């Protein structure tokens, strides 16, 4: 495709509405919280800009370290579970899907396209005191009394794996789809076993999909706020809930801004690393 080089009035006209909107309502607010993060919140929620990094240092308070550590652990485990469930399914759709491939893929997408709240609510009902999960456990004789399943880190993880699984499956499918089956045949003709073929040929070639899927699951999980709010309650507070509390309840915008900036930087770092390694073309393919 031929591309026009350099700036022109036409190009400026095409790009300026987006530049205006994203500049004022995306970049500027981010700059604002960056500035606020170096300030100090007063008693009435007012902020004095002091340019000292104390808000960032507060993160090392054991109370907050615990919350951040929990967020990273839950997000990491969510990513791991999504991979463990998502890889076999993506593999299945790609190589065994046949003419049902698109339908099978659409079936992965449908739960993902429904409201996140609806998905979280489904687990509130299932894991609740007298819900299906508890009654199944009692029916199977695993427990005699209803267990406390909801408002635990496990419940949060369940809800997150459920919500973010499609984020893992789609990039995995995209990279497995490009796999040339002749490579597998070549490996097997040369005497490799099934497992050997998989680990030495198929899996390494699907690695860009694994990395993309892991980033797509880990980032929103680490910053998740709705799922821990509904399924974790006050005992499984994550970074997202902490940020929300600082902004809406504690009215400590300076500290809340510092937390938000750190979360944003973590995300940008991950995406920059990814673009440098794989390039933006792959992102468009997803």
């Amino acid at each position, binding site marked *: *495709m031929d*591309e*026009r*080089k*350099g700036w022109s009035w036409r190009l400026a*006209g*095409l*790009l300026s*509405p*987006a530049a205006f*909107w*994203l500049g004022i*309502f*995306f970049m*500027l*607010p*981010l700059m604002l919280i960056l500035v606020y993060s170096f300030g100090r919140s007063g008693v009435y929620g007012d902020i004095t800009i002091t340019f000292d990094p104390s808000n960032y240092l507060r993160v090392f308070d054991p109370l907050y370290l615990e919350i951040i550590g929990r967020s990273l652990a839950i997000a990491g485990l969510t990513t791991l579970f999504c991979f463990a469930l*998502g890889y*076999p*399914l993506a*593999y299945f*759709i790609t190589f065994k899907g046949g003419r049902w491939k698109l339908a099978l893929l*659409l*079936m*992965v997408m*449908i*739960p993902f*396209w*429904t*409201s996140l*709240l*609806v998905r979280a*609510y*489904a687990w*509130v009902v*299932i894991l609740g*005191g*007298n819900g*299906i999960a508890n*009654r199944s456990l009692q029916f199977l004789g695993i427990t005699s009394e209803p267990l406390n399943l909801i408002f635990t880190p496990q419940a949060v993880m369940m809800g997150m794996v*459920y919500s973010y*699984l499609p984020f893992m499956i789609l990039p995995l499918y995209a990279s497995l789809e490009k796999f040339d*089956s002749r490579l597998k045949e070549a490996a*097997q003709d040369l005497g490799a076993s099934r497992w050997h073929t*998989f680990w030495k040929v*198929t899996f390494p070639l*699907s690695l860009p999909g694994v990395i993309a899927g892991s980033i797509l699951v880990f*980032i*929103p999980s*680490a910053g998740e706020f*709705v799922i821990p709010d509904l399924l974790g309650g006050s005992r499984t507070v994550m970074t997202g809930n902490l940020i*929300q509390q600082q902004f809406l309840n504690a009215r400590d*915008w300076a500290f*809340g*801004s510092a937390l*938000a900036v750190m979360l*944003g930087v973590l995300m940008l770092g991950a*995406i*920059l690393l990814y673009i440098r390694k794989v390039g933006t073309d792959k992102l*468009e393919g997803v």
Partner: protein
Amino acid sequence: MAKGKGGGLPDKALFALAGFVYLFLYAPIAVLIFFSFNAERSTQVWSGFSMRWYGELIRDQSILDAFYNSLIVGVSATLVSTIIGTFAAMGLARHRFRGKTAADSTIYAATVMPEIVVGVSLLAFFVTVQFQLGLTTIIIAHVAFCISFVTIVVRARLAGMDRSVEEAAAYLGANPATTFLRVTLPIILPGVMAGGLLAFTLSFDDFVITFFTAGVGSSTLPLKIYSMIKFGVSPIINALSTVILVVTVILIVGGSRILAGRKE
């Protein structure tokens, strides 16, 4: 050893695992739908079939109000972001210029920035410039995150387009506006429609960013559902969820049919 297509994993285990994952994806939804037809006020113990909660749903004025708000926000955000996003996609797909990497990065950053960060930064911004929170601020925020998604979808469509038809139109004397309306737009229309559909779905479903940019009395459907879950579970939420699910599935299946048909 079977030498078919594939990468080397055994079939039976794969079938079982795939079945398990689909069960995991759909069982919670099935349970949700099942209890929306419950006769009693329980979302966990079955006591007989009734349509009672659907009746209560359509009589609940606050849910209807939230639904109208969501429609207003969704339609406005979709229209504005689809136009802005399509223009940006044309600029980015067809031109090579200084600052393109920065423009690309901003577009992608807006799609992957954690919603909570976008939400609190917009809250801080609107409060600082003393912009009254309400439907307007929600629409502004939704347009901001929808632009990027529309741009990415439309751009993918433009990348696969044959430019020679545009040149032919220009040689035959069409001005740039006519060329765009009569040649380019009809070709990229499936991409624009897909982008618009994506924008509408994202806007209609958005909870986190809306939560931080909504004012008193500007509750959207997701905000309403959230407060209902917080207040206490009831089959009326199941009924509402079921309606949302059915509408979403119809939109997706219908939308993908239209897009698939147009691609030929």
